[in-house]
């Protein structure tokens, strides 16, 4: 198949397993974000795709060809490093033209491609400047242009926006996504910022402890998290214990909830409910009983902390559907079954 495929890829550093038996296939032209806390193995996975680390086990295929043993400089890929790694002794134009120079491209060819790329990254006319005279965002773009100079098959970025301030980072996320769509290049980005992943990716790969916990579209990751880790890591959520009563129905805090189906044979399970899916009603009427402990009114959203069954449940609502509650008030929590995601154990 066309695209990048990782088969059973494992990487060990001494006794430590950084990446554990990972399977992943990235179809041609997709934008994938490897997302996870630090030390989850995402950077190691990216470096193995780049050929900067050799997998202890497993194979990496690109368009059907095994590239596991192909050295980095023959893999035809572009990579942007967290440090950017712009060559300090070269100007902006020379940095971008580096890969062309290595390939022995003529001066005219180099100049033409550099001008093209400078236009693409909105830095026309910056070719002769030293890299040290650029701002953070400009350097970022130069690093991207340098990686794209040879029109590589795969474009890899290791925490590319982490050095930028928040505002610029948001703008660059949109720009990077638009650039990727324009070029249609297979792109893999490592990030620990879930907003970044949600903004840019076709597929978000959530990793933890060297394993892939879930690989799916951003909205699916958010709406249908596979397990506790994913549910908790992506956005905020309420993790609630569910038990099966004697009649076989699912109960939450001893309250029967229609429509939640637990895996066959399971006596209990954890469900995830996003705060915006928690509706507060008057107590009774089949709702779960709770007591409001705190109301955080942020203007744009209102967070209501409710204590129920010895656990804190957070409900988020918009000012339009402002629940008229104050701390200490008894409320009912209504959970519709389609927002309750049963997580894998």
């Amino acid at each position, binding site marked *: 198949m066309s695209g990048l495929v990782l088969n059973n890829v494992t990487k060990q550093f001494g006794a430590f397993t950084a990446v554990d038996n990972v399977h992943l296939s990235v179809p041609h032209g997709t934008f994938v974000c490897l997302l996870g806390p630090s030390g989850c193995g995402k950077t190691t996975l990216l470096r193995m795709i780049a050929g*900067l680390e050799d997998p202890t086990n497993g194979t990496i295929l690109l368009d059907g060809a095994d590239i596991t043993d192909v050295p980095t400089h023959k893999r035809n890929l572009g*990579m942007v490093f967290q440090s950017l*790694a712009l060559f300090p002794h070269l100007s902006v134009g020379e940095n971008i033209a580096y890969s062309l120079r*290595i390939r022995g491209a003529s001066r005219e060819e180099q100049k033409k491609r550099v001008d093209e790329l400078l236009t693409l990254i909105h830095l026309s006319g910056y070719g002769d400047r030293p890299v040290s005279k650029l701002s953070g965002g400009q350097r970022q773009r130069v690093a991207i242009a*340098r990686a794209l100079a040879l029109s590589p098959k795969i474009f890899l970025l290791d925490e590319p926006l982490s050095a930028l301030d928040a505002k610029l980072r948001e703008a660059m996320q949109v720009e990077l996504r638009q650039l990727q769509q324009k070029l249609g290049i297979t792109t893999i980005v490592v990030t620990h910022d879930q907003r970044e992943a949600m903004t840019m990716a076709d597929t978000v790969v959530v990793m933890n402890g060297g394993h892939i916990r879930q690989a799916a579209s951003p909205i699916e990751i958010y709406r249908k998290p596979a397990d506790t880790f994913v549910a908790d890591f992506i956005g905020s959520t309420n993790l609630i214990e569910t038990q099966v009563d004697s009649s076989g129905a699912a109960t939450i805090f001893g309250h029967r909830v229609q429509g939640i189906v637990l895996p066959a044979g399971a006596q209990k399970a954890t469900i995830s409910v996003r705060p915006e899916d928690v509706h507060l009603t008057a107590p009774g009427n089949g709702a779960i009983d709770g007591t409001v402990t705190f109301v955080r009114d942020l203007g744009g959203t209102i967070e209501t902390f409710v204590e129920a069954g010895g656990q804190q449940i957070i409900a988020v609502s918009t000012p339009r559907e402002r629940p008229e509650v104050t701390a200490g008030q008894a409320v009912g929590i209504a959970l519709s079954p389609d927002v309750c995601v049963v997580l894998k154990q």
Partner: protein
Amino acid sequence: MKREPPQSIADYGPLFFPAGMLLIFFVVPFGTMIAVSFFQRQEGGFYTPAFVFSNYERFLTAFFGGVLGFSLMLAVTVAICCVVLALPFTYLLSRLTRRLQVIWLVALLSVLSLSEVIIGFAWSTLLSRTAGLSNLLVKIGLLEQPVALFPSFGAVPTGMVYQALPYTILVLYPAIVRLDPTLMEAARTLGSSPIRAFFNVLVPALRNTIMATLIMVFIFALGSYLLPQILGRPQHWTLSVLITDQAIYQSNMPFAAAMAVFLVLVTLGLVALTLLIGRKGEKA
């Protein structure tokens, strides 16, 4: 970090001690030497205060010019050999684990603790006909019979490179360790083989360090006066050897001082020239 320029004399306080030391142990002796270089020599090893140029005039002959040229050439050769050997070595060293790096650095420091005399005699044994390396070559069949590889021109820089190499590595080491390792990785992802990346990324990125190291080894090698005598023939003697000879064996202090002053001036001139060229290259 921005620093305030010194406001009062007291702000210069921390400089007094080093400045004083420099004055007593460098400026005063060097001034004395300059003065002596103009003194009149008396037969029998004495000199009287005077202001004559005869010491410098005597120096301006083809013989001393030749020795000066040879000394400079030898020092340049040693400096280049040291940097060419030390650069890849130090780069590979910087990629080892911390433990192995420490072991190597300790080994290099132990070479530094050897005196020039011991290095000289060790190499004269290694290069000798009776017990030297040529016997090994005979054993593996590369040579018919053992030969003496010293005294010869090759033996002099060999010993000097051996002596200066640890200094070179220790000067290059911090700069190479501090260099961002992703620079080399970036070059590889851009299609450069590791060896090409070494030459077109690492070497240019370390340009200033390499220049400084070349100058340091050059000056270090210029002062060497024992190794040329132990490992070379008289025609391989450097100006430093002649200065020692004049000062100690001929008891001609004014002439030795004149040669030393001249050597310092030539060295400073060359260093200034190198820095000037280096700065121009940076602007371009």
